[in-house]
């Protein structure tokens, strides 16, 4: 690692810490409907949306109605995307004349983009028409991120309101976060990206003569607009198959830096917004710090594993499979961020990571994407872990555990456990199934523990709604399309529904004022506790699987055996 790379990493994190309160504060204003500088410019669009949808923005609903609206909206989005893929050859904007997508791949992709996973069993340039990419996938990139924010807002209202059923209006939350946050940021970002050389056109694919005299077909398309939101909305589904390792998606070191940064920007800022909305900016920073420490720890382990070499290559960095334009540090910073933040875009193939760096990525997925995590989703997932921490450790101060003044009782514990259990069950059970069944094993390109890691990673990525792939696994089969699709659904709604139920239950409660007998959730002790609980609960669940995958592979590699 060079000094220059080190400076870049430091700059990256300094910028993240610096922008968190600025964007966080803006989000706060947007969400509590206070006047902000975009309101005069875009307020008409918000009002128009309500008028067109027949929505009364002042009407609030209980958690069931809120969740029902959310499910309905997502289901319609899914249907729309699913059908559009099946019929794309009959629809306009298809200059490459790609064929209709198979039903199982269409199901997988529709679920994938609706759930903010953006797992891609297909390769973009040979499968999807421009129309599907723009109106289907990109739209879901926006609204799936906005859905995550909406759930978070309902949860915050549950925590801060007292003895009420009302958790807000799903449609308002969805509209505001799309219009004032995601759209302006994405437009700004796509303009910058276009300036860096990311393509944005409707040309048909170009056939060119290469230097060696062969002909090559070069895909084109409206890439920049999709890439901007794919990074910002923690979606990650690339326009092209190679994702951000493709020069048309990620042409320069500067675009690489910005795209990496965009992954963490909104999830990090939301911690500040959360603190401000719950009345304790300090608590927001506490959560930020816990996430930041976990991210940094993962980054250090990965960098160590990558630079430390192995008996086969000697003391050289592992460049195989990495994009030479960016080098190891940028590949690892990206791989750590993208798996931590439930983004899933890549600029290097994770299959080529050293076993330990691969494990860090897997752990990030398995912990439920709570290290900054998906837009909204990362934070409400973290709150689930906070509730668990508060319950286990809170008893030790001699009071019924409470979080932000709300008592944590049987119902909250039950819902919290469901939210933690369901994704874990999905990962373990599907991985076990795939690793012993013929259709599961048939897709493997590698054997030994590395092959096992590929399966484990795929289900981790799906259940965590990450979407990145370890690659090396042919996932575009009926088995994997359906299994991974199911994993994504459970990983998304198996968390959202319990979180909504918790929000509803908390909103009904009274709030206990803070005193010196209160379990503090805004100090270093709490940070240590939270990290401890996340690692122990997550670790204990997946330690056997990890031991038989990346850990054993690493140990074998040290003995000079590879797969």
């Amino acid at each position: 690692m060079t000094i220059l790379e080190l400076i870049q990493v430091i700059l990256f994190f300094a910028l993240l810490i610096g922008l968190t309160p600025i964007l966080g504060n803006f989000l706060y204003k947007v969400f509590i409907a206070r006047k902000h500088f975009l309101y005069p410019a875009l307020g008409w669009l918000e009002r128009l949306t309500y008028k067109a949808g027949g929505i009364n923005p002042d009407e609030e609903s209980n958690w069931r109605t809120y969740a029902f609206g959310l499910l309905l909206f997502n289901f319609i989005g899914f249907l729309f995307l699913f059908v559009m893929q099946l019929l794309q050859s009959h629809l306009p904007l298809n200059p490459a004349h790609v064929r209709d997508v198979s039903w199982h791949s269409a199901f997988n992709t529709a679920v994938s983009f609706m759930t903010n996973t953006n797992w891609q069993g297909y390769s973009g340039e040979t499968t999807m028409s421009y129309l599907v990419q723009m109106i289907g996938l990109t739209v879901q990139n926006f609204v799936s991120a906005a859905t995550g924010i909406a759930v978070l807002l309902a949860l915050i209202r549950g925590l801060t309101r007292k003895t009420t059923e009302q958790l807000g209006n799903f449609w308002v939350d969805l509209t505001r976060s799309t219009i004032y946050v995601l759209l302006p940021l994405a437009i700004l970002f796509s303009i910058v990206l276009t300036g860096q050389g990311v393509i944005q056109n409707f040309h048909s694919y170009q056939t060119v003569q290469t230097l060696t005299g062969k002909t090559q077909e070069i895909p084109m398309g409206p890439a920049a607009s999709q890439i901007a939101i794919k990074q910002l909305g923690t979606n990650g589904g690339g326009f092209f198959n190679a994702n951000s390792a493709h020069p048309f998606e990620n042409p320069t070191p500067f675009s690489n830096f910005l795209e990496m940064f965009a992954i963490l920007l909104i999830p990090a800022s939301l911690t500040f917004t959360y603190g401000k909305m719950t009345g304790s900016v300090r608590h927001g920073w506490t959560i930020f710090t816990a996430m930041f420490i976990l991210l940094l720890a993962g980054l250090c382990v990965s960098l160590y594993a990558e630079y430390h070499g192995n008996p086969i290559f000697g003391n050289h960095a592992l460049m195989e499979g990495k994009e030479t334009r960016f080098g190891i540090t940028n590949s690892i910073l990206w791989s750590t961020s993208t798996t931590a933040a439930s983004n899933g875009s890549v600029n290097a193939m994770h299959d080529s990571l050293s076993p330990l760096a691969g494990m860090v990525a897997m752990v990030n997925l398995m912990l439920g994407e709570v290290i900054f995590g998906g837009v909204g989703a990362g934070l409400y997932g973290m709150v689930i872990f906070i509730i668990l921490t508060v319950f286990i450790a809170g008893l030790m101060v001699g009071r019924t555990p409470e979080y932000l003044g709300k008592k944590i009782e049987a119902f909250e514990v039950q819902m919290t456990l469901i939210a933690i259990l369901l994704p874990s069950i999905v990962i373990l059970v599907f991985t076990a199934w795939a690793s012993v069944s013929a259709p599961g094993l048939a897709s493997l390109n590698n054997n030994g523990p590395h092959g096992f890691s590929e399966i484990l990673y795929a289900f981790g990525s799906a259940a965590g709604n990450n979407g990145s792939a370890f690659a090396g696994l042919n996932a575009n089969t009926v088995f994997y399309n359906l299994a991974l699709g199911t994993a994504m659904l459970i990983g998304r709604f198996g968390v959202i529904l319990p979180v909504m139920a918790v929000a509803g239950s908390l909103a009904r409660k009274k709030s206990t004022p803070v005193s010196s007998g209160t379990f503090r959730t805004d100090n270093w002790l709490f940070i240590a506790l939270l990290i401890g609980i996340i690692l122990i609960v997550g670790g204990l669940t997946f330690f056997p699987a990890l031991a038989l995958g990346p850990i054993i592979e690493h140990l074998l590699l040290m003995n000079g055996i590879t797969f």
Partner: protein
Amino acid sequence: MSSKKNISLFNKKILIQALKESFYKINPLQLIKNPVIFIVAIGAMLTTVIVLTGLLHGNYSSFNLQIAIWLWFTVLFANFSEAVAEGRGKAQADSLRKNRTQTQARKRQGNKEVLVYATDLKKGDVVYCTAGDIIPSDGEVIEGIASVDESAITGESAPVIRESGGDRSAVTGGTKVISDSILIRITSEPGDTFIDRMIALVESAKRQKTPNEIALSILLSGLSIVFLLAVVTLPAFFGYNLNASGQPSSQNLSLPVLIALLVCLIPTTIGGLLSAIGISGMDRLLQRNVIATSGRAIEAAGDVDVLLLDKTGTITLGNRMATDFIPAEGISIEELADAAQLSSLSDETPEGRSIVVLAKEKFNLRGRDVHQLNALFIPFTAQTRMSGVDIGSGQDSIHQIRKGSADAIRSFVQNNNGFYPQKVQDVVADISRQGGTPLVVAADNKVLGVICLKDIVKGGIKQRFAELRKMGIRTIMITGDNSLTAAAIAAEAGVDDFMAEAKPEDKLRRIREEQANGHLVGMIGDGTNDAPALAQADIGIAMNTGTQAAREAGNMVDLDSNPTKLIEVVEVGKQLLMTRGALTTFSIANDVAKYFAIIPAIAIVLYAGKNGAGPLSLLNVMNLGSPQSAILSAVIFNAVIIVLLIPLALKGVQYRPVSATSALTRNLLIYGLGGIIAPFFGIKIIDLLINLVS
């Protein structure tokens, strides 16, 4: 607290009974109430079946047998912990109801009296009790007055007065009438007296889980499901790797090994001790002579963050005491003390006696014979608002010494053509401002000075309140005094707030206000007019001397009728919750070491080199002897730790009145960090022993 009720942790009788009970409790219907231990029992059963079928086919596995035995021990140890706690609780409760079982009662039927067994009495029955009778059940005196010996339940030998009407009408079953006779209306159904309810709370079969226990059980079940999945999916992962390393699938993990892993991972420690912790919490209340009517109450006690405390009896000693003599100008302090003592010699009020005591302490003035002095005692009347003595014989030589309120003495002196000095008036105002009561002393037409009477704040109470404040509990003093006096005492005692000139309805209103702001309120009371407030409070402790209405309204009864008990009850509640949290943390933290024992042991065959040890044996950081001994050590540790922690579960974790953050730091270091480290040593030691024996 009466010390006779402290039962040793190693009481032989209880332990032997508990040993028997541990076997009875293997009954599946009982086990299913504890999901974690139920899973262990199923595992033990399966392993036993495997061992037995193995024997039938002629292949005996000593390893499987040992696993089976230790799994059964795990179940037994968990049962044992519950049985010990139950035994101790029952022993406490039995001492309370000892007298009652065979009691016969004189039940009134019309004008006749019939003898019935106490256990046949119903709510509403009227019984007659006279000197020597044991009161058959909880009730209320509806006619008469009697002295009652309540030592059977309170341990206090001095008899107490019970009379119809007023605030001292409740009687408790099992106590004894020692003089006079009373008519009692029974107020509880058979089997539903306070003591019966208390006994139900310490018997696991009848015990209802408390809200926090339910939440914790859900957590433990959830964790068990997680680990069940981690273990159930393991053979698939393992099989994949066996296949990949070209090893036969017959080397896959055996069922006993998987069961051993599962049992080690699920939270058996807290699962096994959970009900013991709950029962012993009730038991600790009983030791303090407090009867709770629900398990929920004791948990709420830990959550209480506002305490309403009556001034009299809780904060102050109860009566005003003389603390100072302040002479008027030209009068020596001895002169004043002498007169004050004389005027109080025959005054039997606590105030009067305290003046005599003060005079003796400060000026060594001894008691004098009133007759010798030819003194005539003038008692206090509402008209004169003074008391005192007339000394001397003969019309002229009579001295009139008087003490009383400032106004009364002023008119007394002025009637005798005396002069009432302004300086004395200033002293009087001063004392009033500081919360004291001034008594002015005069002899004939001369004002001698002022006696200062004060509420004496109990020793150590200020310290206690400071501790409560550290724990985040606010104290509010309730008093009928005017706000000036109340403020002074509140400042001296160090309470956070006070309510002066408080009427019972003010208490109720205050409780509602505090609750509306999210606080949980605890209070203690005795009178019938306290009943609404007791019912409204989250923790309402009724004094045993109080009325039946008060006892029904509260959720605890303090047999000692000691108002400071409220603070102890809060501490018991907090300690109970802390113990649960600490052992849960310990239990989960233990799993880290168990993984490091078992995973390398079971995965040693994978990709094994020439020495027979695969790469994962590197994770064997404890350097355990063999795969078998490693698994066995983890299982044994898992079982033995339950027994080792029984004393902690029964006594509760050490409790200190400190802030939440320091309590958490301390408990985390001991039970969190300790929970991670301890099993590494424990398992290593057991492994060494196993390898030494074999």
